[in-house]
């Protein structure tokens, strides 16, 4: 016989949870007491519940295992909302346990009561309000099952305080299996559709592989590489898909979309066949939908039937886990690839030479006027790439720095690039990096951020001290909300309405006050040396904050022309467009 609080903890242990990210409060005191009396799971005390959700998120994105969050009712729960929405938009597996007021007080506007199931409803894959202690094991079992299968996502489990009461003991056993009659995610793709797709791949003249975050989430990166190399087709990744295909591979054209490379966007626009894998034709990718890839037939592989033909009509949908579908495709290709005619080989070669022509544009070349000695944010990212040999985990916040990181730090492996693509949450970077560092204590974890974003969860520097998390924070400090300012430059005749950061703290002094190490860089010639020190053996165990003063006038390019532009319509630099 166990109390509800103990049952919850046991249930989480059954799910092999090693970290719980959370913050205590009245409604979860029984649970915290149960946590105190065990030592299998570690609890990480954050400084704000939003950070707990982002930490769990970073943990989940880097490991592929669900992140677990524990917050109290009312303000604890509402503080978690942004992080839940962030995970939801990027399909990240997460289980959020929120305390609720006692059952008999629900609905009476009692102290710290909010309808968490209601508030979170549009941003969760599913949610539960637990009614009695006996239901906890099955609810937790279902929560993990739902969060991690099919298209993953966050699940909220709201638990009223009385249900975890230490004096009410009930029988405990953890279910070995779970089946939900109304939930059965696809386990393999339709073979007929897969065959159809193969024959289209074999006859394509100007093919493109467009792979998104689903390939990473679905652990399909290796299979994608095998497939792409067999086919010899060009590959582009979405912002969420970076690392799904090795970025330094010659077949990789870079990221596509609003800030995609010239060659990726041009190739998309001109291709005659798109093989879309685990990507969702997001508006940040397609530009104007009616002008999207006018010549292309589309094969779309996704685990979620609702993403198929949602934004863009597709010709061959294949609903299933990326691993199963790609394995089947690879097997079929082994047999049928030889049937490809020499004509097609010639056409593919012509396609590649057209692409090489676009590549010559060298769209990511960093511009610098004579006599200009400012540090360009792109150069800072390139320097970080060099110093870390391209092997660091990199989280970012949201803004120009995020795009510079995406474009100038090529990822060769999946799960190393951790960013909030769907919701675009400023404040994500630092706590996400902390979650990664918790999961991989010996790996290098970098948070590339901006002076705006870092201040949205800067209190977590304290959590980093407490748990000794040696995250390296690269602050691309342009003294402005750069991405907002860029739009104002381009669309509002340079009226910078509230896009500058006044009253910035002395970041070095600030981080030092938490016991961390800080550097300020304002000269280009010291960039590489300081970064080498930041990532040196000497500072391996320290959190280091590098405040890099970058040129505030730099814009992110390429950039889609909007509204009414197609994939191929881009600004290439200030005042220069395709």
């Amino acid at each position: 016989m166990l109390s509800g609080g103990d049952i919850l903890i046991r249930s989480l242990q059954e799910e092999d949870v090693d970290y719980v990210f959370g913050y205590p409060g009245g409604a979860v005191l029984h649970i915290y007491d149960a946590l105190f009396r065990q030592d299998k799971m570690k609890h990480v005390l954050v400084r704000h519940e939003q950070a707990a959700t982002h930490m769990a998120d970073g943990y989940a994105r880097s490991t592929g295992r669900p992140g677990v969050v524990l917050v109290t009712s009312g303000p604890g729960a509402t503080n978690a909302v942004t992080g839940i929405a962030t995970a939801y938009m990027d399909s990240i597996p997460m289980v959020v346990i929120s305390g609720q007021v006692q059952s008999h007080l629900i609905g009476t506007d009692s102290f710290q009561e909010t309808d968490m199931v209601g508030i979170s409803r549009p941003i969760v894959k599913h949610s539960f309000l637990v009614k009695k202690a006996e239901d906890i094991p099955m609810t937790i079992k279902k929560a993990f099952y739902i969060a991690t299968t099919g298209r993953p996502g966050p699940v909220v489990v709201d638990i009223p305080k009385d249900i975890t009461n230490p004096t009410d003991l009930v029988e405990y056993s953890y279910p070995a299996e779970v089946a939900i009659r109304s939930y059965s995610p696809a386990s393999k793709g339709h073979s007929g559709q897969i065959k159809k797709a193969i024959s289209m791949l074999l006859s394509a003249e100007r093919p493109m592989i467009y792979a998104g975050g689903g390939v990473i989430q679905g652990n399909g990166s290796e299979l994608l590489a095998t497939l792409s190399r067999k086919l010899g087709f060009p590959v582009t990744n979405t912002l969420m898909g970076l690392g799904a295909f090795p970025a330094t591979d010659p077949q990789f054209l870079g990221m596509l979309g609003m800030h995609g490379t010239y060659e990726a966007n041009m190739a998309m626009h001109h291709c005659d066949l798109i093989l879309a894998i685990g990507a969702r034709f997001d508006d940040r990718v397609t530009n104007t939908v009616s002008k999207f890839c006018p010549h292309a037939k589309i094969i779309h592989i996704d685990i979620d039937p609702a993403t198929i033909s949602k934004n863009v009509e597709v010709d061959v949908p294949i609903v299933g886990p990326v691993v199963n579908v790609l394995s089947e495709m690879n097997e079929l290709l082994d047999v049928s690839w030889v049937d490809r005619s020499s004509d097609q080989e010639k056409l593919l070669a012509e396609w590649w030479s057209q692409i090489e022509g676009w590549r010559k544009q060298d769209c990511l070349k960093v511009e610098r006027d004579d006599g200009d000695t400012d540090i360009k944010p792109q150069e800072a990212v390139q320097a970080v790439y060099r110093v870390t040999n391209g092997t660091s985990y990199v989280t970012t916040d949201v803004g120009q720095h995020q795009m510079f990181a995406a474009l100038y730090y090529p990822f060769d492996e999946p799960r190393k690039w951790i960013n909030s693509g769907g919701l675009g949450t400023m404040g994500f970077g630092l706590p996400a990096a902390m979650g990664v560092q918790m999961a991989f204590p010996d790996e290098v974890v970098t948070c590339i951020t901006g002076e705006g974003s870092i201040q949205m969860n800067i209190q977590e520097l304290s959590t980093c001290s407490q748990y000794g998390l040696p995250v390296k924070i690269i602050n691309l400090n342009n003294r402005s909300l750069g991405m907002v300012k860029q739009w104002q430059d381009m669309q509002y005749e340079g009226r910078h309405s509230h896009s500058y950061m006044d009253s910035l703290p002395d970041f070095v002094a600030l981080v030092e006050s938490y016991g961390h190490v800080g550097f300020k860089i304002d000269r280009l010639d010291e960039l590489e040396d300081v970064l080498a020190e930041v990532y040196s053996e000497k500072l391996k165990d320290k959190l280091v904050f590098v405040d890099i003063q970058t040129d505030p006038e730099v814009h992110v390019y390429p950039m889609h022309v909007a509204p009414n532009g197609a994939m191929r319509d881009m600004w290439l630099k200030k005042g220069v467009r395709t």
Partner: protein
Amino acid sequence: MRRIISVLLENEAGALSRVVGLFAQRSYNIESLTVAPTDDATLSRLTLTTRASDKQVEQITKQLNKLIEVVKLVDLTDGEHIERELMLIKLKATGAQRAEIKRTADIFRGQIVDVTNATYTIQLTGTTEKLDAFLRSMADATVMEVVRSGVSGLSRGEKILAL
């Protein structure tokens, strides 16, 4: 185009709010909605009518299917189906109008289910169209109150929506 979507839903607290929430959140419209438990007490059957293009209704049904508590659903308007709606209507019925109202109600196979010196309450079942037509025919009468159940329906023939 008008659609009638019929959904088998786990009979659990909160399930209905997920369906309704989905419509609001994705700005799909709901014209009418009815819901009640079925012969299987673990299931509710929900019928809703909406206006949507083929493409929109495809998204609506896919998004509904994604809700964990949705067990099964069918777009009744995809095939032959029967739809019924119940209406109760209270009218001023005095003088010459009294007989006239009764005659029209008879034509529509309505039943007078409550009577006072000055009012009739008429119960009418049928398709939404028929109920609308009856209301139009009462244009000269004084309608005091109207309550409609929203549409319920099922497929014709052997086709069923069940576990």
